[in-house]
């Protein structure tokens, strides 16, 4: 009799206010980190890939540094030239992966469930991006440390190195949000991958990532000026080779932040598309 009474009270709706944005965002970020860590193979290859890129590129194109045009630019070695671009290349693959995770959540019905919870759409996205950012920071750091081990130096010192990693992550997260945007619109992993690659690789090749800018044809040089990837790569390269030019760093940071704001807004709005 008494037990029955207790039982019934236990069934009443619980008084609970909606959790705060920060709480839900961190809860979801923790969930994503947990998921990532439970796939050790994924983590290993995410870390191995940047290493392979750096070694491959710096060894393959090292002959480039012998050319008089390259030497006129003042970079001590091709490694010092290409290292920031390798950091960016590494995080771009993680950015592509972000959209795929979103599609996985859609397929599993997980996203539907989250969308009926009393939480902000943006916290679902930001929870995802925090996890991406953590992985990207690890990747960028690994590339940088490896480059240092191969003889590179950072003229900007510790502060410069920190700014370099932060800039690369900021750019990577902006691209991850773009990938999420594509994922929410297509709800299809193959499409997300193909469109993601389409939006990613040209962005890199439209910069001086692999070849010094004066070597690019005129029209490509013009296009690359509107390219956020160009800012993170060139600013990073200047930090490594010539030191911290804070005005230039602030300008690049502003452009990257604006890019992130735009892709994040687009991805958040894409949730509305799913509702129709």
């Amino acid at each position: 009799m008494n037990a029955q009474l207790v039982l019934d009270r236990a069934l009443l709706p619980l008084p609970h206010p909606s959790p705060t944005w920060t709480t839900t965002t961190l809860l979801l970020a923790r969930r994503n980190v947990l998921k990532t860590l439970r796939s050790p193979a994924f983590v290993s290859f995410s870390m191995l890939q940047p290493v392979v890129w750096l070694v491959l590129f710096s060894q393959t194109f090292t002959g480039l540094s012998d050319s008089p045009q390259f030497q006129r630019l003042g970079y001590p070695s091709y490694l010092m030239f290409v290292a920031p671009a390798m950091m960016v290349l590494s995080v771009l693959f993680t950015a592509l992966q972000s959209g795929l995770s979103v599609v996985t959540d859609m397929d599993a019905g997980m996203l539907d469930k989250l969308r009926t919870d009393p939480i902000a759409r943006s916290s679902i996205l930001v929870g995802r991006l925090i996890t991406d950012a953590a992985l990207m920071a690890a990747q960028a750091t690994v590339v940088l440390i490896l480059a240092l081990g191969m003889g590179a130096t950072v003229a900007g010192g510790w502060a410069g190195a920190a700014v370099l990693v932060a800039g690369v992550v900021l750019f990577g997260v902006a691209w991850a949000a773009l990938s999420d945007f594509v994922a929410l619109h297509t709800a299809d992993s193959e499409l997300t991958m193909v469109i993601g690659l389409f939006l990613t690789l040209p962005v890199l090749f439209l910069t001086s990532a692999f070849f010094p800018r004066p070597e690019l044809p005129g029209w490509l040089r013009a296009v690359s000026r509107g390219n956020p990837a160009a800012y993170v790569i060139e600013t990073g390269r200047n930090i490594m080779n010539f030191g911290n030019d804070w005005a230039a760093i602030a300008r690049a940071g502003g452009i990257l932040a604006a890019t992130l704001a735009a892709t994040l807004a687009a991805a958040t709005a894409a949730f509305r598309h799913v509702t129709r």
Partner: protein
Amino acid sequence: MTTHPTTTIEATDLAKVYGDGTRALASISFATEAGEIFGLLGPNGSGKSTAVRIFVTLLQATSGAARVAGYDVGRNRGRVRQLIGYSGQYAGVDQDLTVSENLGLSGRLHGLSESQTRLRSDELVERLGLRGVAGQRAGRLSGGMRRRLDLAQAMVHRPAALFLDEPTTGLDPQARNALWDELRALSAAGTTILLTTQYLEEADRLCGRVAILDRGKILTIGTPTALKDAAGEDRVTLTLAEPGGPDQRALAQRVAAEVPGVLNVRDGQEDVTLRLRAAGDALLELIRRLDREGVHVARLRLVPTTLDDVFVAYTGESPRSELESGRRPTSVFAAIHGGGAR
């Protein structure tokens, strides 16, 4: 937020036309009472899931209104999301998290404290028979177990209104009964439940009232008993001991036709099929008379009223197969309702 003793679920002229022109819902209206278990009954493609997805804020209605506890789901999304629990047709569980972690995440996202979440998780794990697998990753669970976890997640915060889209599909009878018990208890404590189902039996055992949905329209709303009575007939099939004996068959038919409550008698090659209303009394009388007249019955099979029958009664035709309606085909409907090859 306090408890909502007056949580109702209401649809007023609710309609949904998808972007590709598919009219999934054509102006449906119904209103549950607080604490009622209300069923939307219909075949796949009848608009059940669309209706539920509008109520849980996943879809926007084209016109009309859907309200939960008086809050318009289009205009007061945040409020509605606080009040509801939802389990869709695809189990929304995270494969890489354990059962406990999944439940914990759901509870916390609904604003429960760490300790409330733990308490409530333990309670549901126990009630829904997930105790043995609480520490296992959801991806390693069987389909039925995953379904139960999904349902537990929908209930972890004790929602005022619970929306379940075909909750017992894929559950074994034991799990199904446990879920039914849990739903009855929730309903008794004041939770209003809207569930969709293809099984008349489920509606019968669980729902206070049922709306029958076909091609996006509500054909009728009523208690399961009233619907079955209106749809009419139970079916009894007699297999005679000597099926070859035409005299026996003729005799059986003659006797059966005279039993009060028997509506018609059909002669098959192997057996005799009767349609009768309220099988209980008529069945006893039938057996008594067959025995008295010396008819040797080898087997007697009673087929209670099915959704098919209710459909036939209200539409004059059997529920369309998925193939005909141009959507994804499914064998589930046919399998459940004994259609096709069975």
